[in-house]
């Protein structure tokens, strides 16, 4: 029997509400010590767990959010049988417990900002051209012109990046005040200036939203998207590795220590 995992919750109690997950399967919690893992039994067939299932997965996690602190699993995490599931819980318990504590009473907000990249670049080019006109000298050779053009492209890119950094810094100073953790990705594309996730205390959510609307109204030429509150998908990175990899790493360290002993590195 394959078990489909939706998330880890900070309680070993059973879910009181009837929840239906992927393909309408019943959702229940399997306790492990003082936490629980929320699953559906999927039988043998795992086909059909495609895009449509994403919404069903997310709907279950959202429902869990109402009553628990949740560590949402990545889509299509399947475990082969209850014994393997309990082995996984034993292996990851400390990590799960630590993350649940860290994320208690917090939720995630997504912020995306699109800026008028073409206009920003155009302004930079115009300014550079006007500087050049003022400082125009004698006719240059083809080689010099090539180098000059290359340098200009570099200057444009550099200034574009500087402007992006300045904006993001200013915005993040404002929003970051109300967040406990953040993940910022800048200039994923030329136009997508910022793709960010902020982890916000539930008690600070209103202030965070207010700060967002304030920034939005101050930048009429930009396009803003705020989404949330979400389960903390962006903040559940685990430090736990699989046991085989840990053992391999331990062996490697032992090997290095042996090599150092052989060459007398420890005595230096």
């Amino acid at each position, binding site marked *: 029997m*394959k078990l489909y*995992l939706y*998330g*880890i919750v900070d309680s070993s109690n059973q879910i009181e509400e009837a929840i239906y997950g992927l393909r309408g399967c019943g959702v229940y919690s399997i306790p492990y010590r003082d936490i629980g893992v929320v699953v559906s039994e999927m039988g043998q067939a*795992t086909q059909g*767990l*495609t*895009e449509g299932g*994403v*919404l069903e*997965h*997310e*709907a279950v996690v*959202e429902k869990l959010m109402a009553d628990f602190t949740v*560590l*949402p*699993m*990545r*889509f*299509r*995490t*399947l*475990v*082969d049988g209850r014994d*393997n*599931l309990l*082995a*996984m819980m034993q*292996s*990851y318990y400390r990590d799960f417990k630590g993350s649940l504590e860290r994320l208690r009473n917090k939720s995630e907000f*997504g912020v*995306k900002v*699109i800026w008028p990249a073409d206009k920003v670049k155009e302004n930079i080019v115009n300014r550079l051209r006007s500087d050049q006109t003022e400082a125009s000298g004698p006719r240059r050779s083809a080689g010099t012109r090539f180098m000059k053009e290359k340098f200009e492209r570099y200057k444009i890119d550099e200034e574009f990046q500087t402007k992006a950094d300045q904006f993001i810094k200013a915005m993040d100073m404002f929003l970051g005040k109300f967040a406990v953790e953040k993940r910022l990705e800048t200039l*994923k*594309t030329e*136009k*997508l200036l910022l793709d960010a996730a902020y982890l916000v205390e539930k008690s600070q959510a209103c202030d965070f*939203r207010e700060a967002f609307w304030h920034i*939005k109204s101050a930048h009429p030429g930009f*396009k*803003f*998207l*705020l*989404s*949330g*509150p*979400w*389960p903390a*998908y*962006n903040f*559940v990175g*685990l430090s736990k*590795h*699989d*046991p*085989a*990899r840990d053992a391999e790493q331990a062996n490697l360290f032992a090997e290095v220590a042996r090599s150092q002993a052989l060459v007398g590195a420890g005595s230096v």
Partner: protein
Amino acid sequence: MTKSANVTLLEILDRVLDKGVVISGDMVISVADVDLIYLGLKVLLSSVETMEQLRGSPFAGPMQEAR
């Protein structure tokens, strides 16, 4: 599908397919084609024009309050 639903779906896909707890080890059945789904999604997300077309729509998903 409405524009607002599209944005909601993109936000959900970006999280559920690419983020969240990842368990490694033999006990977990690896489902490699998730990456393929996400690859397709990346193409969508990279298309900023997709988002630009959605400007001004009141995103009204169950959890969203984006503008």
